[in-house]
């Protein structure tokens, strides 16, 4: 499986918004398993789903998803 460098803060922002995985899944029109996969970093959502998620949680997409630069990755290695 191709590793991804995308990390996310979906779980934190969902909990701050007092939403369950089921609530968020219903609003997004996906299954709860898909929300779980996104939170666990096992699925990178489509751009549209990412924007919808940000809109529902009232934050910016960059608050939900991060993509570390080459330098940041190098520092962590």
């Amino acid at each position, binding site marked *: *499986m*191709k*590793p*991804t460098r*995308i990390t996310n803060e979906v779980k934190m922002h969902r909990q701050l918004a007092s939403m369950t995985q089921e609530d968020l899944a219903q609003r997004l*029109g*996906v*299954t709860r*398993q*898909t929300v779980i*996969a996104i939170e*666990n*970093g*096992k*699925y*990178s*959502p*489509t751009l549209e*789903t990412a924007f919808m998620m940000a809109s529902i949680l009232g934050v910016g997409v960059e608050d939900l998803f991060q993509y570390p630069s080459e330098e940041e990755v190098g520092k962590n290695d």
Partner: protein
Amino acid sequence: MNYQEKTILIALPLDFIIFGAYGIWLIPQLSEGIENIDYRTPVILALVASVLLTIISQILLASFDHKQANVEDVRDKEIRRRANGYTLAFLAAPYLFGLILAIAEADYFYIVHVMLFGGVLADIVTSLAQLRFYRRGIN
């Protein structure tokens, strides 16, 4: 586990059972020569059984899990799309081999079985790929 994953987990063993049973019936007869094997009816029965049992199992699953029945979201579609790449790759080889056998005027027995087991293998590989994507994730 989501609904699509359950449908795969039900359909996959059916492939092994039905075509495994056909293989068990076929293999001991090979030593007697292929011209003596009446494979047509068992092949058709295996294909019909595969389709019917898959439909019946899907209906039963939908009746037990009717809230999630036939729900397919973007992740399911992406997983299906990626797994279909394996289907095409695994179907291409038996298709070409079957074509070569037909051009070479090989016995129908070989052509039928290359196509049959090629199709079954492609189906199994596709299902396993989908399960792997569900478990390991896709990025």
